[in-house]
């Protein structure tokens, strides 16, 4: 399976099995007059003297380390043919038998010349032109395949080394300009990645199989690498001193790791108007020994870094859609044929595709980042801490950052110490999903604030979703917990059912009518009222927790239920498992490959509020109501041994009730609640909220809210669908 996928993707260099596009006329013309050194185009596995650089093109040979070692893209990894072969071997170890060591193959530059000299030259030119085309086609595909920045740069390196060059340095601007942003500050190029072929056959063989991450970067420390200095064909970058330094220069900086003592500069600031700036502005690749480049390269690589002479180095600016975003340096060893003028065209192709790929990757990365940020900012910073219930939540983005989801959760305190619990999931995965999520969450919050029944909240959310647009589809579960009644009312819009973990350890998937998703329209929602006994835990979640490519949703829910029950068994009998660790336990049901989707999790532990801590009255709005309310409050405080609070509570209750009865037509409600604070709520049927306004010295009234504001620890007014609630809280003595 693995091998097949690898083979499909394997196009490190042009191969004979690849469909060959008919060479356009212009291309064959370009091939003329270039008798030597087309880029690697040898049919893979032939091993014969197919072309001057054929064996170099035989990518497998020159690949000392597996790409998998330092590629981190989740897609199937392209691997070299030799690795494929090696994996197929029972020993899984040595591939040397099927591989032609590159060092031995390289001195075959003019093999073609041994053919029929008359016909041969023209045929050879055409063949090389075709080879170039095939190479460029394969190489640009390899580059374009990258989704993120590193993949794109890696694609360039893999495509060009060894088929086109023996070493490569890729510099990118730091920071990279994003989109149409106009960059400010000096242009700084940072060595993003470098690559080279190994110089030493044994090295090649010993490194054929390793799976060690960062093998590429650590290679110079390998004992085999110690022989580098003895290899005559380097330095490619003439670091002052031993060839091993040159090896470090290239290998050490690979992957932007910045190993000790890189010979090429990690950072280069482009002097405005300087030679490097000139070359970059010119966009076209230049030979290193050209007048322009010979001044520009020291600026890029740092002083004292010589490059191989005689057209063995190409400096290629990387220009994206709008501006230069970096530069690549292609290097060939002295024993290899020099670059030809046509190779500049190849360099230009590689550079263009790389630069556009980097542009794309930056934009894509930016989008993923923004979407992720968007998602996170639209989730609650922190959950409220209402009385009578403990809350915990988790949000996990999908494993692939680009797969932004539209999951959300919320907890909204309601009058009467009730709390609305919401979890939802916008269909689709995109920035749009995150944005829709934000809209729906806000809407749900607003509707919840009106204290509408759950089925009404979903109904209006559905209507609002349709007003927002035609594709605002989401699932949503909305529950209101009433800690005094020890009941919960739940309505569902197509969301997976919540799971209740009872105090005794029984876990139960709640039977809630599934309902139609939000955004479908025209379907009534149904609310179900259930017992919510103290000590029970309600778990709301999104389908990412229970559904994956490997698991259907109902299997996942059952899995979740079992996990909850198992977790409960581990805790002390009769005691409820601590909430935060419980959330972690629940998330543990996800296997490593299960994170296809984002996950929102909201857990509510029901503590309940004893009826004896609550006092509630309906009072007809009349002139004497404020006095009645004072007496009721005084009596309740006496019952709770809170006589110390009598004075401020009576004062505040009196003020608020006086306000309430002024315009109320139906009976007002007075509620007192004793928990770790004393809370008082006065409800009436007038939706207008009281405002804190400055009373004039001559005003009879208007000072009520100032009193409240001064005396209460917290206070507020909430508009409801049926009127409003004004509340305040005082600390207990």
């Amino acid at each position: 399976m693995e091998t097949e996928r690898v083979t499909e993707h394997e196009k490190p260099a042009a191969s004979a099995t690849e469909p060959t596009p008919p060479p356009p006329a212009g291309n064959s013309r370009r091939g003329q007059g270039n008798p030597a050194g087309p880029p690697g185009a040898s049919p893979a596995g032939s091993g014969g003297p197919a072309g001057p650089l054929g064996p170099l093109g035989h990518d497998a040979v020159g690949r000392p380390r597996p790409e998998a070692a330092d590629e981190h893209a989740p897609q199937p990894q392209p691997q070299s043919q030799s690795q494929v072969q090696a994996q197929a071997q029972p020993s899984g170890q040595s591939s040397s038998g099927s591989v032609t060591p590159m060092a031995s193959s390289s001195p075959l530059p003019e093999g073609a010349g041994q053919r029929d000299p008359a016909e041969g030259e023209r045929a050879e030119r055409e063949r090389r032109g075709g080879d170039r085309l095939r190479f460029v086609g394969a190489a640009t595909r390899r580059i374009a395949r990258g989704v993120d920045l590193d993949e794109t740069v890696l694609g360039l390196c893999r495509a060009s080394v060894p088929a086109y060059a023996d070493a490569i340095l890729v510099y990118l601007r730091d920071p990279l300009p994003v989109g149409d942003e106009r960059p400010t500050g000096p242009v700084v190029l940072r060595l993003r990645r470098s690559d080279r072929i190994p110089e030493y056959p044994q090295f090649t063989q010993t490194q054929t199989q390793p799976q060690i991450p960062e093998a590429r970067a650590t290679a110079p420390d390998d004992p085999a690498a110690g022989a580098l200095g003895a290899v005559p064909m380097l330095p490619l970058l003439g670091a002052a001193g031993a060839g091993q330094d040159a090896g470090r220069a290239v290998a050490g900086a690979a992957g932007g790791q910045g190993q000790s003592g890189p010979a090429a500069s990690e950072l280069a600031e482009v002097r405005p108007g300087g030679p490097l700036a000139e070359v970059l502005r010119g966009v076209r690749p230049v030979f290193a020994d050209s007048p322009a480049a010979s001044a520009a390269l020291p600026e890029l690589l740092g002083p004292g870094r010589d490059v191989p002479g005689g057209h063995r180095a190409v400096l290629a600016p990387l220009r994206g859609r709008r501006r230069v975003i970096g530069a690549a340096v292609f290097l060939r060893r002295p024993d290899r044929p020099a670059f030809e003028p046509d190779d500049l065209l190849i360099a230009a192709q590689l550079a263009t595709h790389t630069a556009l790929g980097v542009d794309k990757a930056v934009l894509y990365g930016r989008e993923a980042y923004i979407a992720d940020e968007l998602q996170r900012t639209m989730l609650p910073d922190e959950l409220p801490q209402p009385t009578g219930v403990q809350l915990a939540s988790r949000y996990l983005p999908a494993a692939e950052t680009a797969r932004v989801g539209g999951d959300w959760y919320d907890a909204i305190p309601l009058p009467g110490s009730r709390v609305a619990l919401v979890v939802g999931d916008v269909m689709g995965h995109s920035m749009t999903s995150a944005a829709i999520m934000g809209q729906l969450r806000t809407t749900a919050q607003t509707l919840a604030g009106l204290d509408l029944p759950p089925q009404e909240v979903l109904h209006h959310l559905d209507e609002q979703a349709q007003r927002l647009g035609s594709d605002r589809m989401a699932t949503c579960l909305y529950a209101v917990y009433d800690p005094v009644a020890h009941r919960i009312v739940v309505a569902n819009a197509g969301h997976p059912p919540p799971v209740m973990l009872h105090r005794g350890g029984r876990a139960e998937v709640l039977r809630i009518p599934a309902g139609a998703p939000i955004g479908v329209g025209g379907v009534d929602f149904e609310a179900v009222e259930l017992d919510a006994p103290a000590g029970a835990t309600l778990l709301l979640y999104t389908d990412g927790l229970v559904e994956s490519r490997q698991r259907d949703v109902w299997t996942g829910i059952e899995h979740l239920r079992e996990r909850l029950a198992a977790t409960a068994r581990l805790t002390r009998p009769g005691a409820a498992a601590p909430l935060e660790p419980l959330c972690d336990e629940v998330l543990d049901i996800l296997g490593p490959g299960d994170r296809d989707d984002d996950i929102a999790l909201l857990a509510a532990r029901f503590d309940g509020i004893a009826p004896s801590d609550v006092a509630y009255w309906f009072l007809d709005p009349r002139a004497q109501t404020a006095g009645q309310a004072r007496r009721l409050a005084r009596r309740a405080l006496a019952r709770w041994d809170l006589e110390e609070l009598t004075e401020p509570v009576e004062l505040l209750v009196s003020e608020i009730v006086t306000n309430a009865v002024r315009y109320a037509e139906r009976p007002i409600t007075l509620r007192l609640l004793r928990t770790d604070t004393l809370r008082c709520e006065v409800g009436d049927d007038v939706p207008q909220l009281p405002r804190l306004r400055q009373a004039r010295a001559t005003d009879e009234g208007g000072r009520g809210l100032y009193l409240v504001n001064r005396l209460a620890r917290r206070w507020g007014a909430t508009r409801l669908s049926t009127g409003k609630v004004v509340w305040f809280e005082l600390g207990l003595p």
Partner: protein
Amino acid sequence: MSGSDGHGAYHGAYGAFDRASIDRSGQAEAFDAIGDRYDEAFPHKEGQLAAGQWLADLLPPGSRVLDVGCGTGLPSARQLADAGHRVTGIDVSPAMLKLCHDNVPEGEFLRVDMADLESSGLGPFDGAVAFFSLLMLPRVEIPFALRMLHEQIRDDGPLALAMVEADVDDFSIPFLGNTIRVSGYLRDDLRRIVSEAGFEIASEDAYAYAPASTDVPPEIQLFLHCRRRP
């Protein structure tokens, strides 16, 4: 309404009450619809049981006890029957009466409006309980109902009365998926009208009670243990 026929305007406690104003529409229907959900929403009736116990203990076994608004018969009619008393329950909801028959087969349960009790000939009784039934009346009628009970109880017989503390009159509230109209008094006012109707308040209890339903808000329940002033 039928009770008004054949009875003079001067007869009984309700005699001075404007019977044309009596409007029970919706009340019985609501309880018919609620049925046994009523007991689910109102579990843990400690206060009611305590008041019933007080009355049951006060009377010699075999006493005739009236249960005004007997509902499902639980827990009070059952409790009184278990204590050896002869229970007569009245209610306006046929569904509730059916449940009551099932729960307390030995009792006598009749569909009689409070306003028609005097003319029904069921009384007099040795004692009466009225748990959360007078609150179904408009305020203006409650003193008449209390006087009627005063006339239906013998001597210094006991009356156990339960109300929800509130200051409302014939106020429509959502109730277990239905709407009912209720009235209430704050406890000082309740004491006063009970006293004015000819009862001595022997003791009282108040319970903070939270129905097991999000549809009914928590309430303060008042239990008055009264003795008829002869």
